[in-house]
């Protein structure tokens, strides 16, 4: 441990001299958002253990909402306290950075999660089974689909209220992920938010086969990629002799000099650095769903319970891009000229790949999945900018995009027929005639995805492309524009379907949601339009949050 401290003392700015046996100093205040959420998660577990079934749902909902709200308040407090800008610093013995980007992303994640929790708690959409309101999660995930156990569970009115603590854990991990200041924390955070997600994918009430399949695919591929990530970390550690971001950055910056000869064997061995960096990048690109590490996205998005899909699509992207940004801007700025071209390539194939494949999709959830891939490409364009504008534009885009996505998936949960959600596009024909309002709202989200002016999507797209163009990536912008033209095609297709095609006689019905989902959708619409009409305030926010601490 001591030598760890000594290693820290070598390269970090915010660490004290090594004492005899230093007691680790934890800045609880600055870590409060994460701590609150994780604490709430533990409480949630206890609730599951101690409270009678029927009161669990309300208790869990209450705890989660309060916790998330409190955490968000804490983030605001920190930001107000200047921890985003002047007082930005490293906390928890260099493990976690508390700075502008971190706080901004944590704030976004918390808000998104809050809204997502509402959709989790929605239990008006499906007809009540045996007099018990049901939500979109299996009565008893462990029971075999269609087996007696499940029947019994349904009759008994079981509900998987565990999802609340589980999602809280995931959120906790996500909060840490973009703030992680050394590779170890990064890895742990990754696992902490991935594992709960694997579970959440598996617990859909309807179409459980798909749900379980998606969970397994997500799990295996996730674990596979995290193995690569870990190996990358190992190599970087071998290269730099440390896993703190600052430390690695130092070594990259000024090679192997002034380091004790013991390390000379591996120190500054570029092969280690490059391979390691590439593998770590791969781990993160997998999470953001960039081509060619995107295969899990459509399947998982389709199979997972729709509220979970919305949560994943929104929050995971935010967290993962946050981590990616920090890695590239804090750890690897020194090797900018190595990774930028590579990321160029990734961004291009991601934008085009996502857009093109989406054209021929027939399932709304898969369609949105591919669109999220395309958007990952757009965001990457901003990431590549390697400028303060780049950071802030990405932050803004993430905020804008996550709410649109959440809203869109929330709408998807409303369109239902006998077999649960009617996700096949053909069933959406003439929706605009049946319920103009819902169709109009969904159209707004689609237009935002397509980046039509006066929606948040346009502002975000403009921001990232502008940043990219200013950093001399003009042709990347052109590619981006072309692919968004392609993308526009399939968004329009859905609108055509909803408004201009005659409704089918046996078409789906639009369920009337409880205030929970209504609120989720409303928030989505409001944010979409607000960020579209008057983005300045949020751009300022993102702009102020545009500096990483190291």
């Amino acid at each position, binding site marked *: 441990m001591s030598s760890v401290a000594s290693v820290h003392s070598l390269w970090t700015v915010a660490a004290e001299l090594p004492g005899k046996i230093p007691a680790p100093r934890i800045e609880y205040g600055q870590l409060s958002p994460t701590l609150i959420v994780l604490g709430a998660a533990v409480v949630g577990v206890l609730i599951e253990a101690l409270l009678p079934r029927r009161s669990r749902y309300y208790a869990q909902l209450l705890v989660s909402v309060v916790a998330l709200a409190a955490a968000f308040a804490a983030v605001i407090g920190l930001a107000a306290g200047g921890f985003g800008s002047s007082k930005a610093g490293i906390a928890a013995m260099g493990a976690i950075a508390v700075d502008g980007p971190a706080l901004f992303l944590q704030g976004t994640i918390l808000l998104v999660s809050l809204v997502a929790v509402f959709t989790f708690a929605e239990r008006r959409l499906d007809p009540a089974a045996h007099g018990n309101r049901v939500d979109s999660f299996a009565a008893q995930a462990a029971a075999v689909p269609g087996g007696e156990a499940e029947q019994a569970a349904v009759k008994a009115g079981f509900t998987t209220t565990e999802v609340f603590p589980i999602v809280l854990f995931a959120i906790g991990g996500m909060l840490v992920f973009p703030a992680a200041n050394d590779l170890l924390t990064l890895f742990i955070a990754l696992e902490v938010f991935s594992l709960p997600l694997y579970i959440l994918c598996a617990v859909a009430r309807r179409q459980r086969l798909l749900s379980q399949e998606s969970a*397994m695919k997500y799990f295996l591929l996730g674990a596979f990629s995290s193995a690569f990530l870990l190996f990358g970390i190992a190599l970087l550690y071998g290269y730099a002799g440390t896993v703190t971001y600052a430390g690695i950055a130092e070594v990259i910056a000024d090679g192997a000099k002034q380091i004790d000869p013991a390390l000379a064997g591996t120190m500054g061995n570029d092969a280690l650095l*490059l391979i390691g960096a590439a*593998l770590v990048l791969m781990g993160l690109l997998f999470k953001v769903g960039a081509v060619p590490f995107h295969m899990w996205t459509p399947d998982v998005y389709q199979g997972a319970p729709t509220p979970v899909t919305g949560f994943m699509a929104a929050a995971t992207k935010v967290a993962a891009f946050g981590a990616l940004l920090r890695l590239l801007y804090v750890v690897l700025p020194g090797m900018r000229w190595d990774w930028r071209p590579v990321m160029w390539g990734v961004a291009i194939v991601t934008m085009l790949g996502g857009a093109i494949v989406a054209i021929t999709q027939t399932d709304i959830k898969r369609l949105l999945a591919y669109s999220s891939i395309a958007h990952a490409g757009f965001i990457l364009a901003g990431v590549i900018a390697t400028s303060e504008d780049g950071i802030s534009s990405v932050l803004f885009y993430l905020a804008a995009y996550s709410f649109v996505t959440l809203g869109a998936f929330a709408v998807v949960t409303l369109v239902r027929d006998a077999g649960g959600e009617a996700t096949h596009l053909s069933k959406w024909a003439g929706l605009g005639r049946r319920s103009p309002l819902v169709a109009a709202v969904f159209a707004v989200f689609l237009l935002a995805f397509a980046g039509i002016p006066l929606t948040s999507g346009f502002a975000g797209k403009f921001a990232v492309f502008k940043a990219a163009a200013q950093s001399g990536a003009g042709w990347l912008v052109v590619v981006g524009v072309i692919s968004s033209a392609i993308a526009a095609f399939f968004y329009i297709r859905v609108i055509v379907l909803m408004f201009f095609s005659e409704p089918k006689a046996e078409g789906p019905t639009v369920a009337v949601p409880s205030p929970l989902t209504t609120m989720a959708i409303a928030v989505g619409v409001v944010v979409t339009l607000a960020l579209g009409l008057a983005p300045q305030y949020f751009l300022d926010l993102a702009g102020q949050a545009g500096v990483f601490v190291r």
Partner: protein
Amino acid sequence: MENLIALLVAAPLVGAALLLCGGKRLDRTGAWIGSLFAVASFAVAAVLFADMLGKSAEDRAVHQHLFSWIPVGGFQADVGFQLDQLSMTFVLLITGVGSLIHIYSIGYMEHDERRRRFFGYLNLFLAAMLLLVLADNYLLLYVGWEGVGLASYLLIGFWQHKPSAATAAKKAFLVNRVGDVGLSIAIMLMFTTFGTFAFGPVLAATGDTSEGKLTAIGLMLLLAACGKSAQVPLQSWLGDAMEGPTPVSALIHAATMVTAGVYLITRSGAIFNAAPDAQTAVVAVGAVTLLFGAIVGCAKDDIKKALAGSTMSQIGYMILAAGLGPIGYAFAIMHLVTHGFFKAGLFLGAGSVMHGMNDEVDMRHYGGLRKYMPVTFVTFGLGYLAIIGFPGLSGFFSKDKIIEAAFAKGGTEGWILGGAALLGAAITAFYMTRVMLMTFFGEKRWAETPGAAAPGQQVQHPHESPKVMTIPMIVLAVGSVFAGALFSVNEAFVTWLEPVTSFAHGHSPLSATAITASTIVVLLIGVGLAWQMYGRKPVPAVAPRGSLLTRAARRDLLQDDFNHIVLVRGGEHLTRTLVYLDHSVVDGAVNGTAASMGGLSGRLRQLQSGFVRSYAVQMLGGAAVLVAATLLMRGV
């Protein structure tokens, strides 16, 4: 005084507006209202004429500037009028003949329920025509130019329910449009050359301009003239235009509109004077047309078409004269006026005949009508004598002068032109005599009672037309008798026009008397020939097959067939191919990209096989690529 000029145009314009927007309540009185406005315009013209006579020759021209029309940078178009001797002549002709024909139409259109609109159109025509001859710049002239085109379109197609009429109207407008393009290009050339297109400056500046530019302008003007005045090669519309009511043919397609080309060339004399090549083109067109029209006129059995052919040829004379420069202008206009009288008269006569023969136009179904409609016979006869140039009548003076001037052109050119003119005179005499004989003489080729009708004969009850129709005919007849003589007493007409068109005595290789004599000789030959063919032996009720030339002439010397095959058919093919290309190529390209994008998408989807392990493979591959790329970047 010059403020009255606008009134000339305004009066018929108001009439037109009134009649066209007035609605049904004007149906009864419409005819009279229309005629009233026409006569009013004539009255104004008379006043102005009197005023003009009062002034000295040099400052007879008066201008009225109304307002600035299109001011854009150097491009300054005004609405302004210029009334000088030339335009005065036209104004009198237009309003005078116009009024007469209005009155005539009251009777002729009596039974047509849409006559309110008819008179509206006639007034519209008067307004446009007056605008044409009164404009003080080419752009405003262009407005009148197309205005008369529109009026003629409306009037030719007046009986729209007849597809033939509608087609004829469309054809007339289109062919005219081709000419109009010439005019507009001429105006553009003027603008780029002189920076203006007002008569005054342009004609004043011809001195210091390259001949090439002037030639170009001249040729463009000639093109315009060809269109409007039915000169070869744009003559094909005039024959069909006879689909219109006869008064229309008399006014528009004989007396006034078709002569606008002559006006244009005379008005632009300064330009042509400075561009000999253009002049040559003009005389060539004139000579060819006068023969062309005459030949066509010989073959037609439709009385109006025959007269149309003659109109064509007479205007050919005028164009020829106008192309001769200062030695010709005055005579061109003079012939124009006399022709206005007798040709209008002839048409009205023909109309009267049709009126009496319930709209039968085929002369082979006429015959021996002289005792049934005496007035018509007399007036028509006088017109006939005038047009063939019977000594003493107006045609004699004007045409004779033109022939003389043609010879005076000098050189082989002069001989050719003069010869052509002479030959034309002979043919004129021939076909007019033919018309006369077939219509009024010989035994009648129709029956008064069904019983008496031989096969192929129609039952007719010919009768003289009402006063309201005959009186205008009489007036015109008088004009066609005396106008020429009147104009020629000590060259009154020439001196009258000289300040505008300028005048130079041509010196022809032949003496005037010789020419006069020769004209009379050819005249007699023509008449005699016609008498041989149509006077001596009876006229077959059905046209004989006739010689190759005859058949060609019946078909307007195949000019229409040429147009049809080359332009119409060709155009149809062109548009069809274009429509196809637009759909398959231009549009197809776009749809193609869309389709190929879809196909690409479909193929890329296959990568998403659903098998975890294939995903893993791709991820591994991706990782490998990523690593390799990163290494390559550093070149390790």
